[in-house]
C-alpha cells in the first residue's frame, strides 16, 4: 500500500477484549464438553478439522474465493511435518515449522498464479494444483513419501513435556492451537485488513476504484489461509504419526466446502459448528446405520446420502448455514419484541 495512505487507519468493526474472551471461553467449553461426551481422540480429530475449516472460511467465507484445492495446503503441512520427522529428526517443533514453511512457500508462489483468475477459474486452477500435488506425493516423490503406502513418523516430546501420544496432552495442545487460530481470525476479520477483505468479497472492482491494489490483500489472505491449513495438516501428522496420499487428495476439498456451507460461510462460529456437524455425520452415521438396519426391515441409505440431504436442506432452506439461520430467527424475534 502507498505510504501516503498509512496515516489514517482503515475502518474496523467493533470488537472488545471481553467479547473475544467470552467467545474463546465458549469455544473451549464446547470442545471440552465434546471430549467428555465422545471419546477424546475424536474430539482431537474434530478440532484439527475445525482449524482446517476456519482456514477455508477465511478464503471462501470472508474473501469470497471458492477453491477446490485447499487440501493441497493441508497436505503440504502434513507431509512437510512427516518428512521432517521421518527423514531429518524427531523434533516436533521443527517438524510443525517445516509443515508451515511448506504451506507458506507453496501458497506464496501458487497464489500469485491462481489469484490472477476469478470465480470458477480460480476454483479449478486450485484443483489442478491440488491434483499435481497429489501426483507428486503419490508417485513422483515416492522415494521420500513412500507413495500409496504412506509415511510413518514419530515425534518426540514438544518443549520436553508435551507428548503427542498422550490423549490429554494432545487434546489440550490442539485446543490451545484452535483457540489461538480462532482468536487470530476473530481479530483479523474485524480489523481494518478484514474490512477490506470483506469488501473485496462484496465487489472487488469497487475496491479498486477506491485506489487499492486488491491483489496484495488477496495474496496475503490466500497465504494466511494456506498456512492455517498447513497448521491443521501438521497437527494431523503429530497426532496420527502417519500420513498417506489421502491427506492431500482433492476429494478432501468436498469435506471442507460442505462443512463451511453447513455452518454458514463468513462466520467463525459457523465454521466451527459446520466442522463439528460434518464430522458427526461422517464419523457417526457409518456406525449408526448398520445398527439401525438391524431394527428396520429395509436398507437404510448410506451416510453419504444423508450428507447430501443435509447439504440440500442447507442450500435451499438455510442459505446462510446453521448459524445464519439461528441469527436470522433471533433478530426476527427481537424485532417482533420491539414492535409489540
Amino acid at each position, binding site marked *: 500500500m502507498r505510504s501516503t*495512505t498509512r496515516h489514517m487507519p482503515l475502518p474496523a468493526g467493533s470488537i472488545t477484549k471481553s467479547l473475544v474472551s467470552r467467545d474463546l471461553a465458549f469455544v473451549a467449553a464446547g470442545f471440552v464438553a465434546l471430549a467428555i461426551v465422545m471419546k477424546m481422540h475424536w474430539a482431537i480429530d474434530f478440532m484439527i478439522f475445525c482449524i482446517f475449516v476456519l482456514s477455508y472460511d477465511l478464503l471462501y467465507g470472508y474473501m469470497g474465493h471458492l477453491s477446490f484445492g485447499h487440501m493441497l495446503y493441508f497436505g503440504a503441512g502434513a507431509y512437510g511435518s512427516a518428512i521432517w520427522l521421518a527423514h531429518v529428526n524427531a523434533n516436533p517443533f521443527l517438524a510443525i515449522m517445516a509443515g508451515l514453511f511448506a504451506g507458506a512457500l507453496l501458497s506464496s508462489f501458487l497464489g500469485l498464479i491462481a489469484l490472477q483468475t476469478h470465480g470458477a477459474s480460480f476454483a479449478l486452477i486450485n484443483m489442478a494444483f491440488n491434483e499435481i500435488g497429489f501426483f507428486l506425493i503419490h508417485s513422483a516423490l515416492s522415494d521420500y513419501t513412500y507413495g500409496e503406502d504412506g509415511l510413518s513418523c514419530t515425534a518426540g516430546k514438544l518443549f520436553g513435556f508435551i507428548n503427542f501420544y498422550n490423549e490429554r496432552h494432545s487434546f489440550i495442545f490442539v485446543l490451545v492451537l484452535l483457540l489461538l487460530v480462532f482468536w487470530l481470525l476473530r481479530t483479523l476479520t474485524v480489523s481494518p485488513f478484514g474490512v*477490506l477483505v470483506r469488501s473485496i468479497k*462484496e*465487489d472487488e472492482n*469497487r475496491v479498486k476504484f*477506491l485506489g*487499492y491494489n486488491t491483489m496484495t490483500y488477496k495474496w496475503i489472505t490466500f497465504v494466511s489461509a494456506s498456512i492455517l491449513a498447513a497448521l491443521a495438516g501438521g497437527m494431523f501428522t503429530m497426532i496420527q504419526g502417519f500420513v498417506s496420499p489421502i491427506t492431500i487428495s482433492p476429494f478432501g476439498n468436498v469435506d471442507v466446502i460442505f462443512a463451511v456451507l453447513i455452518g454458514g460461510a463468513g462466520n467463525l462460529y459457523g465454521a466451527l459448528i459446520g466442522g463439528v456437524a460434518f464430522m458427526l455425520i461422517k464419523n457417526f452415521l457409518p456406525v449408526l446405520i448398520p445398527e439401525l438396519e438391524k431394527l428396520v426391515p429395509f436398507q437404510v441409505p448410506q451416510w453419504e446420502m444423508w450428507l447430501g440431504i443435509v447439504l440440500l436442506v442447507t442450500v435451499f432452506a438455510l442459505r446462510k448455514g446453521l448459524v445464519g439461520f439461528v441469527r436470522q430467527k433471533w433478530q426476527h424475534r427481537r424485532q417482533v419484541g420491539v414492535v409489540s
Partner: protein
Amino acid sequence: MLEVKGIDVSYGHARVVHDLNLRLDRGEMVFIVGRNGAGKTTLLKTVAGLLRPVKGTITFQDKEIHGLPAEKLARRGFRFVAQEKKVFSSLTVRSNIELAAHGAGEDLDTALKKATSIYPDLSRFMDKKAGGLSGGQREILLIGRALIGEPKILLIDEPTEGLAVIVIEDIFRILREMKEKVSAVIVEQNLSVVSRLADRIYIMKEGKIIKEFANKAEIADITELERYL
C-alpha cells in the same frame, strides 16, 4: 484534459465501441446520451480502466493512460460511480467513507465533510448499514464518496436511473453544485437533467458518436436532442 482518440472496445469478438473520439476539458461536465446497448457504459468502463481498448488511445493531461488498471487510475484522480448503485452493503455509511478516505490518503474528518457537504442529511445515516439505504441515498453516498481525496475526473453512470422524481431533483442539485469544481463524464438518459447541466453532449448509437452538441442553445433544446434517440 482527457482525450479519447479512435478507440475500439470489444467483448470477445463482439465490437461494442467503434472508432470513438471524445474530449473533456477542465471544469467541464460532458454527458453521453444514447439508447440501451449503444456502448455508453462500455465507454465509461474503458476510461475507468476496467476494459482495455483494442485500438486507439486515451490520454489524461497529455499522458497515455489506456491499459492502466483501475486502482492506478483511481490514484491519478479518476472516480467511477457505476450504474448499479452498489455500496459496501455490510459496512456502515461511515466505514464506506473511511474506506474511500484511506484509499485516497485523506484524513477522516475532511473526508466526512466532503461526503456530507453535498447532502447534509447523509450524516444522519452514518452508523447505518449502507445496504439499508434507499437507491437515492446510495447514489448520493457514492457521489459523495467519489469526491474524497483529490478527484480530477468523475465518471458517473446513469446517476438518476430508477430513482423517484424528488430524488432526481436532489441528484440534479448535487451535480449542479459540483459543476466547475470537478470535471465529469456522465452517462445519463434523463434529457431534462442533461440539457440543464451539460457543457457538451455526445449522442451515442451502435458504439459510435453520431452527434456532438457544444452549443448552449442546442443543448437546451430537448426536442432536438430527442431526435437522435
